[in-house]
């Protein structure tokens, strides 16, 4: 959306094809964004404003099946059988959340009060942070790295935003539940963005969040309907077993299925992490292996909102360069 707006204002005609019924992707499902608790609706509002332009044709509910290049013109085919011409393409197919059911040992989809970070965002939005039976949770755990840095599920990479999401969500949970005990089970705290480390400190000093360095090995449910979590506390070197009312799984980011299909259909290259492989890690993170096809956002790697918007702007600059100056 950011790239479409920028291109339109530069004077190009843009066709924006969205597979969902509405634009906004995952962000529209989130509640507050780190690091400053901004309501995600503000970001959506900003992006929607970006695409209010006469040069932009928005098509929703359609998926791009493939595209074909003849000389310097592309024909883009959507799933309704329509063909649309284009001089350049920006792929912005985004990411999908790791399906937490795949980590069976954490019991998502098996035990009612094991939820994902995405489910928690919805609970915050509905102001309904409760157990399935309606009880107010007194002890909540957050499991980091669910589907990230995990050879067993085939994801060696770090999704890099789950850590700060857990920090933000734990703080948010504290705002809802003043007396609850809140634990984060982490491998490493990767506070890689601006103000993240400060947020992590604040969460401990002001929000009484307890961080335990260790990977959860197993979740089960006892006769009282409480979750029993086994985890190793690697700082004290002891195994821990604790009862929790609610467990939140910090689902990682994966290449989207529609992105993968597009890669197979068009010959766009993907990397070891299955995301689209940029032409150059340092100088060409927006360029693909096909001239005239560019990438924007999380279809290339896990990125936060700020980085995604910057990446989209950078894609615009590459597209303009390509259209005006051709291939160099």
């Amino acid at each position: 959306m950011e790239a479409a707006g920028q291109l339109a204002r530069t004077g190009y005609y843009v066709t924006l094809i969205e597979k969902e019924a509405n634009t906004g992707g995952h962000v529209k499902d989130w509640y507050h964004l780190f690091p400053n608790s901004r309501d995600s609706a503000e970001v959506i509002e900003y992006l929607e404003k970006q695409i209010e332009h006469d040069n932009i044709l928005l098509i929703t509910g359609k998926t791009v099946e493939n595209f074909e290049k003849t000389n310097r013109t592309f024909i883009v085919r959507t799933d309704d059988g329509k063909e649309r011409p284009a001089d350049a393409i920006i792929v912005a197919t985004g990411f999908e959340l790791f399906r937490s059911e795949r980590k069976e040992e954490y019991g998502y989809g098996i035990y009612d009060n094991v939820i994902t970070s995405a489910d928690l965002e919805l609970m915050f939005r509905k102001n309904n942070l409760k157990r399935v039976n309606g009880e107010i949770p007194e002890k909540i755990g957050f499991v980091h790295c669910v589907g990230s840095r995990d050879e067993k599920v085939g994801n060696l990479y770090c999704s890099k935003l789950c850590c700060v999401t857990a920090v933000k969500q734990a703080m948010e949970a504290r705002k809802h539940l003043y007396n609850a005990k809140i634990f984060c089970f982490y491998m490493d705290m990767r506070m890689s963005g601006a103000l993240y480390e400060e947020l992590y400190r604040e969460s401990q000093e002001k929000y009484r969040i307890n961080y335990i360095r260790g990977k959860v090995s197993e979740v089960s449910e006892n006769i009282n309907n409480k979750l029993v979590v086994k985890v190793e506390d690697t700082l004290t070197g002891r195994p821990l077993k604790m009862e929790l009312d609610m467990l939140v799984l910090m689902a990682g980011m994966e290449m989207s299925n529609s992105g993968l299909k597009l890669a197979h259909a068009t010959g766009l290259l993907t990397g070891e992490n299955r995301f689209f492989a940029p032409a150059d890690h340092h100088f060409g993170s927006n360029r693909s292996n096909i001239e005239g096809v560019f990438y924007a956002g999380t279809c290339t790697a896990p990125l936060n909102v700020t980085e995604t918007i910057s990446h989209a702007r950078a894609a615009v600059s590459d597209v303009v360069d390509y259209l005006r100056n051709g291939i160099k």
Partner: protein
Amino acid sequence: MFLIYKLRNEIAEKAKYRLVNHETGDPLNVVEHIGCHYSKMFPRYGVGGAEFPNVLGGMIEAWGGNVVDYPERRHCCGFGFRQYLVQANRGYSLSNTVKKFSSMKPFKPDLVLTNCPGCTMFMDKWQYTMKEMDGTVYGENGESIPVLTYEELAGLVMGYNPWNLGLQYHMVQSEPLLKKLGINYDPEDKFRTIDGRQMPVPENLINA
């Protein structure tokens, strides 16, 4: 084991008894304990994978029982190879069995089903040991929980005579289970050979 799993529905069709309490009609609560060789070493080849192996659970469900999901479901039976075989480690072995049985006790299991001879022996005989050491029993009504292999259970539901299946040679006797299932048995035949000779009766059997 896979053969019985594969034939579980055919066995259910031919079964004389279902895993339900014949008086109340409630399904029996069955703990399934999968030997670590089956699911933990070769998770890809096992039915249901490593975390929720379903090879025994599938049989239990097909035959009408309720599979108990309790916190220490995946915990070791207590054998743990060297933990038991090295005599100095037996306390550790036993403490693991205590942990496992304490965790399943609140769910009131009527039966433990196993696939590994080591687990069967341990979960059976350690119940005797735990009872002798501190008087704790893990079943209801002061009884211990019968531990059967899947072959024994298949035979039982198909109507085989429990004494021909050899259930009397377990430490924890199966009579409470047989009563719940509505299986008729002759106590007089329990320790008789097929040609009718009386065998010596073991001492200290539990649930007898």
